[in-house]
C-alpha cells in the first residue's frame, strides 16, 4: 500500500515538476536548485499547514523535516527551541500527540487549586524558558521561587541548609505546576510563525527506510527514491507522514524507543511515591527534604500558602496512606516532617565543629550559620493523593538512524530532586543546537553522526545525575549504624565546607555540568 501511495506522490510530483522546469529554463539566473526545495515545501504547505482547520485531515501524506512524537513538556519545549533559532525556524515540524490539550488554547485559572503534578525548575531551565519566550506566561500564573533549601535526616545527626546567596544567586529554583509549564510552551509555540502541524493521534508504526533497500526496490523509477531518506510514520487515525528525523519525546514508556529497537537498562525500586497538594497557615518559602527510613519526603512551596508533597515509601505503606482519611494523612505528614522517626538535628553542634574545623571553614557561607528550622505545619490536603511507582530507566543509545530520544524516553529518573524534567529540557536545548549546527554546515538532519553529537553531549551528564540520585536513594534506604554516621558526616561536610556547598548548589541548579570536578 505504501509503495503505491509513494508512487502516486511521485507521479504527482513529476507532473507538477514539468511546468516548473520550463519556468526556470526561461528565467535567466539566480533561481535554481533551491527552487525544487521551495517547490516541495509549497506543495506540502498547501496540503498540511493550515494548522487549526486541518487538524483532522485524513489520508494526506505530509512531508516534514522533523516529527516530534509526544507533545508533552519536553516535546513542546524542543519545538519551541527550534522555533527560536534562526537556522532551525524554517524547519517543518509535525507534532504527534493524542492529548486534546494541544489543539485548544485553554486558559489556566489562577484560582484553581494547584495540581499535584509539579516540577522544580532550575535556573538553567528558567533561562531556557526566557530564551524561547515562554517565561512570561509562567510568571502570569502560579509559581513559587525558593531561595533556601534544608535537607536533613531522621537520625538527627546532621542537616544542611542551602541558600542561593552562597553562590551569589537570587534563587535556587522555582516550583511550577506541569500544566503551567506545558501551557506556557504551547502558547509560545502557537504565537510563533513556525511551520508546525499537530496530528491529534497516536503513532502505530514507523518504517525506517534504509538507502540500499529503497534503491533496490524502486528501480528503475528513480524518482521514487525521493523518500529514501525519510521515515514513514503511520498513525492510529489512518494518517501517514514522512519525516527526515523522528524525535521520541513520548515519555518513559516510549513507543518510538520500542519501534526503533533501542535497548534500555533500568530497574524498579520497590517503592512508590505519593504526591499531593497541601495547605499551610503561613507562606512556605523554602524547599524541604527529609530522609526517612522508608524514603525521602519533600515539601516544595508552590505559592498561595500551598505546598507540594512528594513522599516515597513502600508500596504497602503507600496504599494505606492513600486510602486513610485526610486528617490522619495530615497528621502523618506533619509527623514525618517534624519529630517522627527521630529527633531534630542539634543546631548547637554547629559551633563545636566551627571551632575545631576553623581551618577548613574559614570562609563560611552565610547559610552555614543558619540554624535548623522546622518546616511549616500542614493544615489541610488540597488535592487528591496520587501514587506512582518509582523506577529508573536509561536507554543504552539515544539515537539510531533518523531517530533520536529526548526526555523521559531516554532517561527516567528518581523524582528525588525534581530533576527529571530539567534533564529533559537540557536534552531539548542541546538537540536543537546540534540540529542548528548541522544545518549551518549543510548536514542531513537525520544523519546518525549528527545525532551522535547530541548523545555524546547529553548521555554522560544524564548518567551522572541518575547515578547520584540512585546513590542517594540507596544510601538513605539503609538503616545501618556506620552508614548513618557517614551520612551525618556528609551533611556536615555539605553544611560547612564552602567550596563543596557552592559546588553542590551550582550542579543542582544546572549552572554547571559536572559535580565536584569542575
Amino acid at each position, binding site marked *: 500500500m505504501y509503495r503505491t501511495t509513494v508512487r502516486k506522490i511521485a507521479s504527482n510530483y513529476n507532473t507538477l*515538476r514539468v511546468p*516548473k*522546469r520550463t519556468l*526556470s*529554463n526561461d*528565467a*535567466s*539566473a*539566480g*533561481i*535554481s*536548485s*533551491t*527552487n*525544487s*526545495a521551495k517547490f*516541495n515545501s509549497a506543495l506540502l504547505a498547501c496540503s498540511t499547514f493550515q494548522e487549526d482547520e486541518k487538524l483532522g485531515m485524513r489520508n494526506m501524506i505530509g512531508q516534514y523535516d522533523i516529527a516530534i512524537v509526544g507533545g508533552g513538556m519536553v516535546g513542546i519545549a524542543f519545538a519551541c527551541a527550534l522555533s527560536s533559532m*534562526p*537556522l*532551525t525556524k*524554517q524547519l517543518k515540524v509535525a507534532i504527534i500527540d493524542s492529548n486534546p490539550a494541544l489543539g485548544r488554547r485553554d486558559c489556566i485559572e489562577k484560582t484553581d487549586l494547584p495540581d499535584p503534578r509539579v516540577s522544580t525548575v532550575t535556573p538553567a531551565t528558567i533561562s531556557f524558558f526566557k530564551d524561547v519566550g515562554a517565561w512570561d506566561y509562567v510568571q502570569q500564573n502560579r509559581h513559587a521561587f525558593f531561595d533556601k533549601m534544608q535537607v536533613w535526616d531522621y537520625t538527627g545527626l546532621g542537616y544542611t541548609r542551602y541558600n542561593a546567596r552562597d553562590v551569589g544567586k537570587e534563587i535556587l529554583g522555582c516550583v511550577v505546576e506541569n500544566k503551567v509549564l506545558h501551557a506556557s510552551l504551547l502558547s509560545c509555540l502557537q504565537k510563533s510563525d513556525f511551520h508546525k502541524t499537530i496530528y491529534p493521534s497516536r503513532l502505530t508504526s514507523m518504517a525506517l527506510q534504509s*538507502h*540500499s533497500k*529503497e*534503491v*533496490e526496490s524502486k*528501480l*528503475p523509477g*528513480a*524518482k521514487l*527514491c*525521493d523518500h*529514501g*531518506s525519510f521515515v514513514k510514520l503511520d498513525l492510529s487515525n489512518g494518517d501517514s507522514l514522512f519525516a*527526515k528525523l523522528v524525535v521520541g519525546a513520548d515519555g518513559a514508556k516510549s513507543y518510538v524507543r520500542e519501534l526503533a529497537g533501542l535497548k534500555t537498562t533500568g530497574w524498579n525500586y520497590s517503592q512508590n511515591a505519593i504526591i499531593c497538594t497541601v495547605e499551610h497557615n503561613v507562606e512556605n518559602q523554602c524547599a524541604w527534604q527529609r530522609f526517612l527510613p522508608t524514603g525521602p519526603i519533600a515539601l516544595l512551596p508552590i505559592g498561595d500558602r500551598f505546598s507540594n508533597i512528594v513522599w516515597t515509601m513502600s508500596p504497602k505503606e503507600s496504599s494505606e496512606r492513600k486510602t486513610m482519611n485526610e486528617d490522619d494523612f495530615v497528621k502523618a505528614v506533619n509527623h514525618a516532617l517534624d519529630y517522627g522517626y527521630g529527633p531534630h538535628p542539634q543546631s548547637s553542634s554547629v559551633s563545636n565543629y566551627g571551632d575545631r574545623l576553623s581551618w577548613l571553614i574559614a570562609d563560611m557561607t552565610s547559610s552555614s550559620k543558619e540554624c535548623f528550622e522546622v518546616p511549616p505545619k500542614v493544615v489541610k490536603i488540597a488535592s487528591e493523593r496520587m501514587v506512582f511507582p518509582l523506577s529508573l530507566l536509561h536507554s543504552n543509545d539515544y539515537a539510531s538512524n533518523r531517530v533520536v530520544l529526548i526526555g523521559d524516553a531516554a532517561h527516567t529518573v528518581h523524582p528525588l530532586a525534581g530533576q527529571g524534567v530539567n534533564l529533559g529540557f537540557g536534552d531539548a536545548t542541546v538537540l536543537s543546537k546540534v540540529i542548528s549546527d548541522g*544545518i*549551518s*554546515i*549543510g*548536514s*542531513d538532519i537525520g*544523519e*546518525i*553522526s549528527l545525532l551522535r553529537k547530541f548523545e555524546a553531549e547529553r548521555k554522560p551528564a544524564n548518567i551522572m545525575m541518575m547515578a547520584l540520585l540512585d546513590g542517594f536513594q540507596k544510601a538513605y534506604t539503609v538503616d545501618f549504624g556506620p552508614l548513618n554516621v557517614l551520612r551525618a558526616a556528609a551533611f556536615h561536610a555539605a553544611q560547612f565546607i564552602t567550596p563543596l556547598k557552592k559546588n553542590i548548589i551550582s550542579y543542582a541548579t544546572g549552572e554547571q555540568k559536572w559535580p565536584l570536578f569542575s
Partner: protein
Amino acid sequence: MASKSLKLCRALCNNTQHGRNIFLALSASRASQRIQRRLFSNDPQPDLVDPPSTSPSEKPQSHDTRRNEGGAGRRPFSSSLNDVELAKFSAIAETWWDPVGPFKPLHAMNPTRVSFIRSALCRHFRKDPSSAKPFEGLRIVDVGCGGGILSEPLARMGATVVGIDAVEKNTKIARLHAELDPVTSSIEYCCTTAEKLVEEQRKFDAVIALEVIEHVADPAEFCKSLAALTDTNGATVISTINRSMRSYATAIVAAEYLLHWLPRGTHQWSSFLTPEELVLILQRASISVQEIAGFVYNPLTGRWALSDDLSVNFIAFGTKNMNSQ
C-alpha cells in the same frame, strides 16, 4: 578520501589526453552545436535528475562515436541504467556514505571544511550567515566530488552545485545518493574534468577542489583551470596537505601504515604542496589567496578543528583578481 583522488588523478591524466584528441577531432558542425549548448549550460540547471533529452548535445551525432567516453555528452549513462548495475553501485554508495566505513576520515573532516567554506563565502559574497540557505543564488563547482560528500551540504545550503569527478563510478554513486533527498537531487554530477569544463567555457561563482591538488600531475595547470572556471570576482577554495615533517609522520606513516585510515601508497609526500607554493601557483593563475587555515585532529574527541597550524592539512580561500580574464 585519497583513493578516490588517486583514481581521479590517473583518470585525469588519461582523460586529459583523450579530451584533447577529441577536441581536435571535432568537426565544425559539432562545434556550432557546442556553442548552443554552452549557452544552455550557463543557465542555471534546476533539475538535473532527469536526462536532459532536450539538450542539443544529446542529439544523435553519427560522426562523433566517442562522445560518451570523452565526457562531452553530459549524461552518457542516464539512459542505460540497469537494475543489476545500479544495485551494485548502491552497495558501494553505502560505503561512500557510511560514516564509519572507508571514507570515515573524510566524513570526520567534512564539517570543519564546510564551516570554513561557509564563513569564507558568506563574507566574500556578503551573504547572511544566520540564514539556513546562505548560498542561494551561488553557482558552485565541486571539483573531485567523489560520492558527493561536499556537494550535498553545499546544495542544502542553497547553492546550485555541479559536482565533477573523473571517475564515472563516483558520479553515479553521488547521483544515486543525492536522489534520496529532494533538496540534493538538483545537484548536477558530471563525469568530466576541470579542463573539459574550461573548454566548455563554464563559469562559477565559487570553484572548490578539496583534497585533489596533491594528486594531479601538474598542480600549476590545474590551478589555471580552476581559475578559468572562476567567474570574475568569484572565489576559489583549495584544500590539501602540506609537505612537512609532520605531514609525513601523520598523513603517511600514521594514516596509511599505522591506523590504516587510507590505503598504502595513497599519498606521495613529494607531491604535496606547501602553503607558500600553493599561494604562488594560485597567484600565477591570477587568484589571490585571502585566507588560509589549518585543520588539526583531536584524537580524544575524534573531531577536526580549524587552527593556525598549517603543518599538515590546510585550506586556502582565494579570489579571482578583477583585472584578469
